[in-house]
C-alpha cells in the first residue's frame, strides 16, 4: 500500500481477457466495453455519467419553462385588474409552475447530480442497475413532456400543485387536466422511486474496497439518507394519485364526503409526501455544500459524525410534521401543539449543519471563488426562509398567514435558498469536471449579483404583501387593498431574477465552449487535504470512470486526486483490465467495505427506452379513454420487463475471479447478498410504505371521516381460497430452493408456486367483481376493493416472477451456486403472502369497526 492510500501496481494482471497494462490500450479497451456507440446508439446508453448529465440537462430545460411561467404570473400580478391572463389560463400557469419546479426540476436535478457523482466519489465504475437508471430517465422525460404538452394544448391541470380534493375531483375539474397531473406525476414518481432504489443499493454495495461507512465522503451519506427518505416518502403520493384517479375514472368515492369519503384524506396523503419532499430536495443540495465548502475553505469538514446524526434526525422528524400544512382544517389543540413543536424542532439538525459549515469556513482559509459566492447567497436566503418557517410552525401565526403570499415568500426563500443556490454553487464547482474547462468567471459574478438582487426584490416584499392579506392563487386584485406597489416591486424583481438566471446560462455556455483546460483536480483539493475520488480522473471523465479501482486506506474525503488518478489511469488497482467484454466493478460489505463480489453490469441496450415508450403509450391511452389500448400497452410493458430479466446474469458457474492484488472473488450471480437482492429488499420497503399508507387511509375513512353510514358490507367466501393460495408461494419457493441445492428438478415447485399465485390473484380479483356492495356505493366498500386489489396485484406480480424464474431455469441461468432468481421469488412470495393476508383481514374487519361519522 502506498502513502496515498492506493494499492501498489498490479504486476500480474489476471483473468481470461486480453490484459491491457499500457494506459492507452487499457483506456481504449475499457471504452469499447463501456461505450454505447455513435449516432442513434447513444439512446441505448445506460452509463451513469451520460444519464446523470441527461437528467440534469433535461431538468434545467424544464426549469427554464418553469421560470417562463413564473414571469407570466408576475406580469399578471404587476398591476391590479390586469387582463394579461384570464383566470383559467392563470390557474393552469401557476399549477404547472409549481408542478414543474417540484417534480420536473428539483427532484430530477438532485437525482442527476447524485447519479453523476456517486459512483465517482465511491470508486465504482457505475451504479448497481444501469438499465434501471436509463428507464428512470425515459420515464421522467416522457412524464414531463406529457405535462408540458398539456399546457400547450390548453388542457393543463388547474387545481394547484397539490391538487386538493374536491377541487380536483370530477365534478369541479371535469376536463382531463387533473388526469394529466395524476398520471404524469405518477410517471415521474415511478422514475424517482427506481432511482432511489438504485442509489441506496449502489451506495451500500458498490464502493471501493476499504471504503467503510465512516470513510465515505459526506455527500454519499446525504444521498443515502435522501434515497431512503424517497423510498418511504413518495409512496403515499403514489397511493393518493392512484386513489384519486380511481375516483375520477371509476367513481370510487375515496374523497367524496357524500358517500363516506373525506377530502382531508387527500391532504394527509399529499403532505405525508409533501413535507419530507422539502428535505428530500434540500439534503442533496446540502450534501454538495458539505463537499465544496471544505474544498473552498481548504480544510476538512468539521463535525462529520454530528452531521450524520443530524441527517438521521432530520429524516425522521420530517416525516412527523406533515400536519403543519393542515393547521387550518380544524385540528385539536393537542395535535396542533405536537406538530407545532415537531416543526420547530426540525430546525435544530438543520442548524447543526449550518454551524458546521460556518465553523469549517472560520477555521479554514477560504478563497472567494464562484462556488463560495453562491454559498454565501445560500446562507443569507436559506436562513431567512428557515426563520419564517419556524414562524409558520407556530399555529397562531399560521392561522393568520395561511394561504397568503407570506407563505409563497417563505417557501421560495427555502427552496431557492436551500436548493437553487447550493446547486448553482455545485454547478460552478463541478462544471470543470463535466467540461474539462475552467472559466475566468467575470460574467458569473455579475450574474450572481443580478440574480441575488432580483430574488430578494421579488420575495422580500412578498412577505408584506401576504401580511397585508393578499391570498395566493388569485389571478388579480382590485387595487385599493394596498398591494399594488408591493406587487409591482415583486414583478420588477422577478424579471431581474430571470435575467440573472439567463446570464448564468450564458456564463456556463461560455465556460464550456471557451474556458481554458482545467486538468485533473482544478480546485487543487489534494494540495489542501480535502480531495475526493471524483477528481481522481481525467476531465471530462472517460465513460468507464476509473481504469482501475482503488483500495482506500483512510478517509475518502482527504485524498490526493492527482496522485490517485495517475495510479488508477495506469491500471494500478483492482480490475485494471478487461475480461470477457464484461463491464465489471466491485461489490463490498456494507459497513466495512471489504470486497466480496465482482459485479458484472449489463451493457448498453434499447430495452429501457422501449419499455418507457410502451408505458407512455399506456398512460396516454388512459388519458384518451382508450382503455383496451392501455391494457395492450401494459401487457407490452410486462413482456419487455420479462425480456429484460431473461438477459441478466451468467449462463454458467464460474470459479473465483481474480480481481488483482492477489484477491479472487465470486461473480455477483453466485453471492446471496448481491445488488439485485438488495434492490428487491429496498423496493419492498417502498412497497411496504405504500401498503402502510393504504392501511392508514382505510382506517382513517372508517374510523374518523364523517359521512353517511356504510351499507351492510360482506365479502364472498372466495377470501378463504385467496388466503390459502397466497400461502402456496412461500412454500413452493422454499421447495424449489431445496430442490435446487440438492440438484433435483425444480420445475414442479415453480409450477406449483405459479399456480398458487394465479389462483390467489384470480380469487382476489373475483372478490371485487362479486362484492355484495358496489365499491362505488360507499367509501368503505371502495377501500375494501382497494385492499383486495392490492393483494391481487402482488399475487399477479409473483406469478410473473415465478414464470420468469422458470424460463431462466430452462435457459441455464439457475444452478446450485446461482440461485438468485429463486431467492428473489421467495422474498416476493413472502411479502405478497403477508400483505395479502393483512389486506384481506383488514378488508373483512372494516365493517366490524365503528364508523366515525355515522
Amino acid at each position, binding site marked *: 500500500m502506498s502513502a496515498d492510500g492506493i494499492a501498489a501496481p498490479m504486476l500480474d494482471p489476471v483473468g481470461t481477457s486480453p490484459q491491457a497494462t499500457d494506459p492507452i490500450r487499457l483506456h481504449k479497451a475499457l471504452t469499447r466495453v463501456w461505450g454505447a456507440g455513435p449516432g442513434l446508439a447513444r439512446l441505448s446508453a445506460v452509463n451513469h455519467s451520460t444519464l446523470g448529465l441527461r437528467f440534469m440537462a433535461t431538468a434545467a430545460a424544464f426549469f427554464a419553462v418553469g421560470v417562463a411561467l413564473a414571469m407570466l404570473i408576475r406580469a399578471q400580478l404587476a398591476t391590479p385588474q390586469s387582463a394579461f391572463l384570464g383566470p383559467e389560463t392563470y390557474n393552469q400557469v401557476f399549477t404547472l409552475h409549481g408542478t414543474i419546479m417540484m417534480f420536473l426540476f428539483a427532484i430530477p436535478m438532485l437525482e442527476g447530480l447524485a447519479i453523476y457523482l456517486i459512483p465517482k466519489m465511491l470508486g465504482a465504475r457505475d451504479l448497481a442497475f444501469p438499465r434501471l437508471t436509463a428507464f428512470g430517465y425515459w420515464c421522467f422525460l416522457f412524464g414531463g413532456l406529457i405535462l408540458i404538452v398539456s399546457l400547450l394544448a390548453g388542457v393543463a391541470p388547474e387545481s394547484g400543485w397539490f391538487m386538493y380534493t374536491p377541487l380536483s375531483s370530477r365534478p369541479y375539474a371535469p376536463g382531463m387536466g387533473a388526469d394529466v397531473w395524476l398520471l404524469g406525476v405518477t410517471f415521474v414518481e415511478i422514475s424517482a422511486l427506481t432511482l432511489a432504489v438504485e442509489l441506496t443499493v449502489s451506495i451500500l454495495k458498490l464502493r471501493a474496497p476499504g471504503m467503510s*461507512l*465512516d470513510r465515505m465522503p459526506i455527500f454519499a451519506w446525504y444521498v443515502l439518507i435522501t434515497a431512503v427518505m424517497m423510498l418511504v416518502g413518495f409512496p403515499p403520493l403514489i397511493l393518493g394519485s392512484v386513489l384519486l384517479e380511481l375516483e375520477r375514472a371509476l367513481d370510487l368515492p375515496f374523497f367524496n364526503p357524500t358517500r363516506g369519503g373525506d377530502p382531508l384524506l387527500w391532504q394527509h396523503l399529499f403532505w405525508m409526501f409533501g413535507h419530507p419532499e422539502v428535505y428530500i430536495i434540500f439534503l442533496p443540495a446540502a450534501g454538495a455544500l458539505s463537499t465544496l465548502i471544505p474544498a473552498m475553505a481548504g480544510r476538512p469538514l468539521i463535525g462529520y*459524525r*454530528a452531521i*450524520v*446524526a443530524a441527517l*438521521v*434526525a432530520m*429524516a*425522521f*422528524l420530517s*416525516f*412527523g410534521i406533515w400536519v403543519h400544512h393542515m393547521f387550518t382544517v380544524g385540528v*385539536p*389543540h*393537542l*395535535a396542533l*401543539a*405536537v406538530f407545532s*413543536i*415537531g416543526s420547530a*424542532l426540525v430546525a435544530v439538525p438543520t442548524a447543526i449543519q449550518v454551524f458546521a459549515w460556518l465553523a469549517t469556513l472560520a477555521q479554514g482559509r477560504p478563497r472567494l471563488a464562484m462556488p463560495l459566492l453562491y454559498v454565501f447567497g445560500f446562507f443569507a436566503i436559506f436562513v431567512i426562509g428557515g426563520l419564517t418557517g419556524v414562524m409558520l410552525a407556530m399555529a397562531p401565526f399560521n392561522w393568520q398567514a395561511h394561504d397568503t403570499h407570506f407563505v409563497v415568500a417563505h417557501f421560495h426563500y427555502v427552496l431557492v435558498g436551500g436548493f437553487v443556490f447550493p446547486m448553482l454553487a455545485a454547478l460552478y464547482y463541478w462544471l470543470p469536471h463535466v467540461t474539462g474547462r475552467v472559466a475566468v468567471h467575470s460574467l458569473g459574478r455579475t450574474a450572481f449579483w443580478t440574480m441575488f438582487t432580483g430574488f430578494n426584490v421579488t420575495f422580500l416584499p412578498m412577505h408584506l404583501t401576504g401580511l397585508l392579506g393578499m391570498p395566493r392563487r388569485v389571478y388579480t386584485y382590485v387595487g385599493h387593498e394596498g398591494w399594488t406597489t408591493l406587487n409591482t416591486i415583486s414583478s420588477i424583481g422577478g424579471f431581474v431574477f430571470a435575467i440573472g438566471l439567463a446570464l448564468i446560462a450564458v456564463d456556463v455556455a461560455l465556460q464550456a465552449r471557451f474556458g481554458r483546460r482545467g486538468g485533473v483536480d482544478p480546485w487543487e483539493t489534494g494540495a489542501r487535504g480535502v480531495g475526493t475520488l471524483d477528481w481522481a480522473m481525467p476531465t471530462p471523465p472517460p465513460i468507464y470512470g476509473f481504469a482501475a479501482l482503488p483500495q482506500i486506506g483512510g478517509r475518502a474525503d482527504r485524498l490526493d486526486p492527482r496522485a490517485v488518478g495517475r495510479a488508477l489511469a495506469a491500471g494500478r488497482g483492482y480490475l485494471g483490465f478487461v475480461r470477457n467484454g464484461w463491464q465489471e466493478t466491485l461489490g463490498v*460489505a*456494507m*459497513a*466495512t467495505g471489504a470486497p466480496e463480489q465482482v459485479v458484472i453490469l449489463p451493457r448498453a441496450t434499447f430495452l429501457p427506452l422501449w419499455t418507457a415508450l410502451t408505458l407512455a403509450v399506456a398512460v396516454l391511452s388512459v388519458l384518451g379513454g382508450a382503455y383496451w389500448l392501455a391494457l395492450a400497452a401494459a401487457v407490452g410493458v410486462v413482456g419487455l420487463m420479462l425480456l429484460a430479466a431473461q438477459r441478466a446474469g451468467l449462463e454458467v458457474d464460474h470459479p473465483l475471479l481474480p480481481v488483482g492484488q492477489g484477491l479472487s472473488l465470486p461473480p455477483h450471480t453466485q453471492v*446471496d*447478498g448481491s445488488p439485485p*437482492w438488495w434492490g428487491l429488499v429496498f423496493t419492498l420497503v417502498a412497497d411496504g410504505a405504500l401498503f402502510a399508507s393504504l392501511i392508514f387511509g382505510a*382506517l*382513517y375513512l372508517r*374510523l*374518523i371521516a364523517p359521512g353517511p353510514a356504510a351499507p351492510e358490507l360482506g365479502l364472498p367466501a372466495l377470501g378463504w381460497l385467496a388466503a390459502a393460495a397466497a400461502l402456496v408461494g412461500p412454500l413452493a419457493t422454499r421447495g424449489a430452493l431445496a430442490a435446487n441445492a440438492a440438484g433435483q428438478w425444480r420445475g414442479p415447485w415453480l409450477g406449483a408456486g405459479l399456480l398458487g399465485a394465479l389462483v390467489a390473484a384470480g380469487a382476489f380479483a373475483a372478490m371485487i367483481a362479486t362484492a355484495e356492495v358496489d365499491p362505488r356505493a360507499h367509501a368503505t366498500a371502495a377501500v375494501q376493493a382497494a385492499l383486495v386489489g392490492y393483494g391481487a396485484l402482488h399475487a399477479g406480480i409473483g406469478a410473473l416472477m415465478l414464470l420468469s424464474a422458470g424460463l431462466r431455469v430452462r435457459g441455464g441461468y439457475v444452478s446450485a451456486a446461482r440461485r438468485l432468481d429463486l431467492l428473489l421469488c421467495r422474498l416476493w412470495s413472502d411479502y405478497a403472502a403477508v400483505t395479502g393476508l393483512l389486506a384481506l383481514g383488514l378488508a373483512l374487519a372494516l365493517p366490524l369497526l*365503528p364508523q*366515525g*361519522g355515522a
Partner: protein
Amino acid sequence: MKTPGFWRLTAGFGVWASALIWFYAINGVGCAMGWDAQRPALTLALVAHLCILGWLAARMHGDDLLGSVGVWCARAAFAAIALTFAPALALSVCR
C-alpha cells in the same frame, strides 16, 4: 446478507416515530369515538416511550460511526419525545 449494526442508526428516532404513531392513533381515533380515557392513555404512551429510549440510550455504546451516531440519536430522540409530546399532559385533547 447481514446488515451490521444499521439498527443503531435508526433505533432512537424509530422509537420517536413509534411514539408519534401511537399519539396520532390514540388522539385521532379517541376523539372520533369519544373516548373518556384518552389522557391516561396518552400519558402512558409518553412514559412508555421515554422508558424505552432511556433504556436504549443507556445500553448503546460504540466508538465506530454507527455506534456513536446511534447514541447521539437516541439521546436526541429522548429529548424530542419529551418536548413534542409533553402537551399531552395538559392541553385539551379534542378541542
